[in-house]
C-alpha cells in the first residue's frame, strides 16, 4: 500500500508508521477532524478471503474519501487508523476465519487524514458450504459507545507498545 500523501491532507496532521499483519508497512497522516456518520445510511463493503476490497457502496466511497477505483483491489486496511489497537483486528480475523460473525466499534482513517467511527459487523459469506468472501456493514454508533471504546483502545494501545 502506498504511503499517504501530504497533499491529500486537510489542515494539521501527525505522521505515523503502521505495521500490518502481513509484515508490510505504510506511513499514514492523521488529523483530528471527525467526519460525522451520515444519517440513515449503511456503509457496505465486501472483501475476498485476503481482505482485499471487491465491492464498496457509495456511502463507503463518500466516507473513506477515496474513489471507487482507488478502493477496489486495495486491502481493507487502507482505512486502518493508528488509534486502533492491533488486538481488535486480530480478534476480527480470528472470529471470521472461524466462520463466525464479528461486531465491534472501529475508528476509520479517511484519505484526507480525518476519521469516522462506525459500529461494524462482518460476516463470512458461505456458498455451497464454503466461505468465499466477507461482507461488512457499518452503522452509526452512539456517542457514549464511541467514547467508551476510544478510552478502551487507548488503554489497549498503551499495553501493546
Amino acid at each position: 500500500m502506498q504511503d499517504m500523501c501530504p497533499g491529500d491532507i486537510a489542515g494539521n496532521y501527525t505522521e505515523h508508521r503502521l505495521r500490518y499483519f502481513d509484515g508490510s508497512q505504510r506511513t499514514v497522516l492523521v488529523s483530528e477532524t471527525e467526519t460525522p456518520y451520515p444519517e440513515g445510511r449503511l456503509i457496505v463493503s465486501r472483501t475476498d478471503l485476503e481482505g482485499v476490497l471487491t465491492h464498496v457502496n457509495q456511502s463507503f466511497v463518500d466516507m473513506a474519501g477515496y474513489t471507487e477505483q482507488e478502493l477496489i483491489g486495495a486491502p481493507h486496511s487502507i482505512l486502518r487508523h493508528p488509534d486502533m489497537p492491533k488486538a481488535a483486528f486480530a480478534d476480527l480475523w480470528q472470529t471470521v476465519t472461524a466462520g463466525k460473525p464479528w461486531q465491534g466499534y472501529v475508528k476509520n482513517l479517511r484519505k484526507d487524514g480525518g476519521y469516522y467511527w462506525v459500529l461494524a459487523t462482518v460476516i463470512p459469506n458461505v456458498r455451497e458450504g464454503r466461505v468465499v468472501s466477507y461482507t461488512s456493514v457499518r452503522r452509526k454508533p452512539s456517542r457514549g459507545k464511541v467514547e467508551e471504546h476510544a478510552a478502551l483502545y487507548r488503554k489497549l494501545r498503551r499495553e501493546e507498545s
Partner: protein
Amino acid sequence: MTLQFAISPDFPPEHIPGWYIFNTWLQRELDCAIHLQLYDNFGDLREAIHADRLDLVYANPFDASLLVREKHFMPLARADNLQDEAVVLTADHHRARHIEDLRPGTVIAATDVPDIEMMGMIMIEPADLNRNNTQRITCDNYVMVAKQLLNDEADIGFFLAEAFDNLSDLVKNQLRPLVRSQIQVIHHSLMAGPALQERHATLQQLLTTMDTSEKGQGVLDALKIHRWSPLAQEDSEFMIDLMDTLMIS
C-alpha cells in the same frame, strides 16, 4: 397441478386487485392454474413456507433467507421502482428533534413488518436504544402507527418510507421524520420454488419483458410497478448476507 402463489402480507391493501390481475395474466402466460393466497400475517406465511406449500412468493427481504437458503427458491425479479426504506417519526409537537434526544423508556409504535422493524431499531441505536430499554405498541397498519403518535401514546413510529410519503398532507404535516434510511439494496423479491425450476428462465423472461406489451404494461400499472428487473442468484445472496449482518446486534 395448481401452483400456489403467496404475497408478503405487507403489500399495500389498495394493490389487492392488482395482484389478482397479475395472477390472471400469469396463468394465461404459463397456461397453468395458479392459486393466489393472501396471508394476514407473517407467521401464517412462514408456516406455509416451512410446510413447502408454496411455489411462487413475492417476499419481504426478511423471508428471502428462508426461501433461498433453506427452501431452495430461486429469485426471479424485483420491482425496479420499489425499495424497502424506513422512516422513524415523531409527532411534530414531540420534544425530540434528533434521534439522540430519545431516552430509555421510549415507546415505539410499529407494524409487524420485519424489515421495517429491523431498520427502525438500527436507526435508534445512536441513542443507545434497543429492545430491552424501549416499549412497544404493535399496530395493524401505518395509519394506526400515526394515530399512536398524534395521540401521544407513542414517542416514535416506524414507517415504510413509501407509506409515509402516501399519507395525506393533513396527517403528514403533524408528523416529523427524525431519520430516513437510504440503504438502497433492500427490496421485495419475486421468487420461484423448486416445482418451477424448469420454467424459471421462461418465467423470468415473461416478467422482465412485461412492460414491452400493452397488456403487460396494464397489469404492471395495476400493481404500481414500472417494470420487473431480473434478479440473479448472487443478487439475492448479497441482500441476504446484508440482512444477516443487520440482524446481529
